């Protein structure tokens, strides 16, 4: 296993830099826009959380290239099993900004019906599978979906996202092992941001890298500069080709960094050295893409402030609509536990509605706040 790392953006060659196979000028511009949108959503959501307008948030600042560059490879046949740090992938796959913002509010228009905390999206139309909080569970599910594709004879793949902490989970092990044994068409994308809440990578694993872990399963492992969206695209697209050709799974490690706190409840200054933060702030994936685009002659003036303003305006509009939307009704509590409502849930629902009539609705505890 070599520790080398794929990088594309800062080529040493002179002249107009070449684009990886499959990437054209438009795609570069699209990816820039997607990364910027992701960043601006994060900025806005973190402020909404501080203002007490939404309950919780998980930013992905600094990691946008991993999500966008890899999801850009997907077609309509491919499925995505994300973690909570891939809003960039959701946007790339076409998820609606308004739908995203509704989810932050958990209101009646949220397509998860206010059932989960903010950032636990579900976008069926985009094959962006419902996010859960338990770390790692999606990894083996992604392997299962890929097995299903193979059983059905599809030329498609699943891509599963997770963090460095998740490589310690049970499901990382079984997911990669099952995928390799069945040569299933899947891509395991680890966004190695080097921290799992307060635990640095060195407390997570003693291995040389995340990519080297692929050897334990007999699959290729690739390490890529995770703040280089073109490198991420290239590595993912090579893995996708292998998957579609029936050559089985790939583990991709995107080396990146969590610029922000773990979540809106976390204070990284308690545990994280500021030098490391500064080092990685200098490698900002959006700034690096901007520099590349300028060098490659792809930059347009409209990509500066005007674009920021345009995106911010649509986020503001979505927030406004979300805040004007009602909360889900009590009776919806009992929907979707099963396809049909069984008798015991009908009874519980009826009793609740009856009680709301006689004693009034339950009150929200204004003090309740998510501490983590």
């Amino acid at each position, binding site marked *: 296993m070599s520790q080398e790392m794929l990088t594309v953006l800062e080529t040493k060659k002179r002249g107009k830099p070449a684009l990886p196979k499959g990437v054209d000028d438009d795609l570069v511009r699209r990816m820039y826009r997607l990364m910027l949108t992701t960043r601006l959503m994060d900025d806005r959501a973190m402020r909404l959380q501080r203002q007490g307008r939404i309950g919780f948030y998980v930013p992905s600042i600094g990691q946008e290239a991993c999500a966008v560059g890899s999801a850009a490879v997907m077609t309509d046949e491919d*499925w995505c*099993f994300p973690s909570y740090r891939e809003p960039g992938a959701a946007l790339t796959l076409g998820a609606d900004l308004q739908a995203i913002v509704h989810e932050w509010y958990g209101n009646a228009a*949220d*397509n*998860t*019906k206010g*059932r*989960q905390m903010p950032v*636990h999206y*579900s*976008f*069926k139309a985009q094959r962006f*599978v*419902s996010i*859960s909080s*338990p770390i790692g*569970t999606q*990894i*083996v*599910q*992604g*392997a*299962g*979906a*890929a*097995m*299903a*594709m*193979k*059983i*059905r004879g599809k030329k498609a793949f*699943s891509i599963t996202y997770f963090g460095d902490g998740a490589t310690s989970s*049970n*499901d990382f*092990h*079984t*997911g990669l*092992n*099952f995928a390799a*044994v069945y040569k299933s068409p899947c891509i395991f994308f680890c966004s190695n941001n080097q921290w799992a809440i307060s635990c640095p990578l060195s407390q997570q694993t003693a291995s040389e890298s995340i990519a080297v872990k692929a050897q334990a399963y007999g699959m290729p492992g690739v390490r890529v500069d995770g703040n280089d969206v073109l490198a991420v695209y290239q590595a993912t697209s090579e893995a996708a080709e292998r998957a579609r050709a029936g050559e089985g799974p790939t583990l991709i490690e995107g080396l990146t960094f969590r610029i922000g706190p773990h979540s809106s409840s976390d204070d990284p200054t308690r545990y994280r050295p500021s030098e490391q933060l500064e080092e990685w702030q200098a490698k900002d994936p959006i700034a690096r893409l901007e520099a590349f685009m300028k060098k490659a002659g792809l930059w347009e003036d409209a990509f500066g402030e005007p674009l920021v303003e345009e995106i911010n305006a649509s986020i503001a509009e979505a927030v406004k609509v979300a805040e004007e939307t009602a909360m889900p009704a009590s009776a919806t509590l009992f*929907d*979707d*536990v*099963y*396809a049909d409502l*069984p*008798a*015991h849930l009908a009874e519980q629902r009826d009793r609740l509605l009856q009680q709301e009539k006689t004693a009034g609705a339950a009150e929200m505890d204004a003090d309740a706040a998510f501490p983590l």
Partner: protein
Amino acid sequence: MPTLTLLQAVNSALMDEMAEDENVVVLGEDVGLNGGVFRATEGLQAKYGENRCFDTPLAESGIIGTAVGMAVYGLRPVPEIQFSDFIYPAFDQIVSEAAKMRYRSGGEFTCPMVIRTPSGGGIRGGHYHSQSPEAYFAHTPGLKVVMPATPYDAKGLLISAIRDDDPVLFFEPKRIYRSIKQDVPEGAYEVPIGKARVAREGTDCTVVTWGAMVETCEKAAKQAEEKGISMEIIDLRSLVPLDEEAFLESVRKTGRCVVASEAPRICGFASEVAAIVSEKAIESLEAPVLRVTGFDTPFPYSLEHVYMPDAKRVLAAVEHAVNF
């Protein structure tokens, strides 16, 4: 109509549903060439190929986790857990993922799958080949929990479970895998999930039970009859959803209720039945609701026969209730 054991009925249901719906796939340890260690999946791989019935690496969390992924994608996986005692490594995927997928996605993603697993004692398997873990799953919203007591029900319930759009835990009472035979129709038929069965009519005392304990209770009923006591046996067939009315009606008639189950007592499903009866039929009760269960100890080896509730213990409880 062929006369089948419960095991053969399970096999027959799988054979039929795999023919019916090509989304049905069977996976697990040793289920392929070997046909499962109990032979429940015998012949499936030969008939439907390695794509539809296949062995897995030794990881229950992987079996269920990949099955969740397949189900979310659109298949109808029927994973086998070799013994229900080995289901615990998969607990997280079942409880956190399969059970909550529909709810947490607002109904966007679903997880139709049937986890088949032999359960219960009576085969001299000690701690780890004898447990009855159904209560863990009954306590988990989003899961259905089914346990047949006869070959006919085994086939019909398994077919219903495979066609169900939600995750179903299908516990097979392995003690009676081969000991009971019954006429079982060829071809597919459904026994609805959520409908109990009056296994035996009676007037003096209701006994609520499920799985292999139905047979034990039938033995007790014969002995009770000799003593002039008429036992009514309700075979629940499914714990979630539960056919409350079936046993409440019976208790209202007999005025007495005994619940019999192999599992440990504390928080077992027998406690749930007792709690429902004490909430909804207390005015009809002429005696305490009694539970006959496994002891609150791990399942033993040499003393298995002492641990497991037998006809004697059921009868003693029934007599106690009747003479109260």
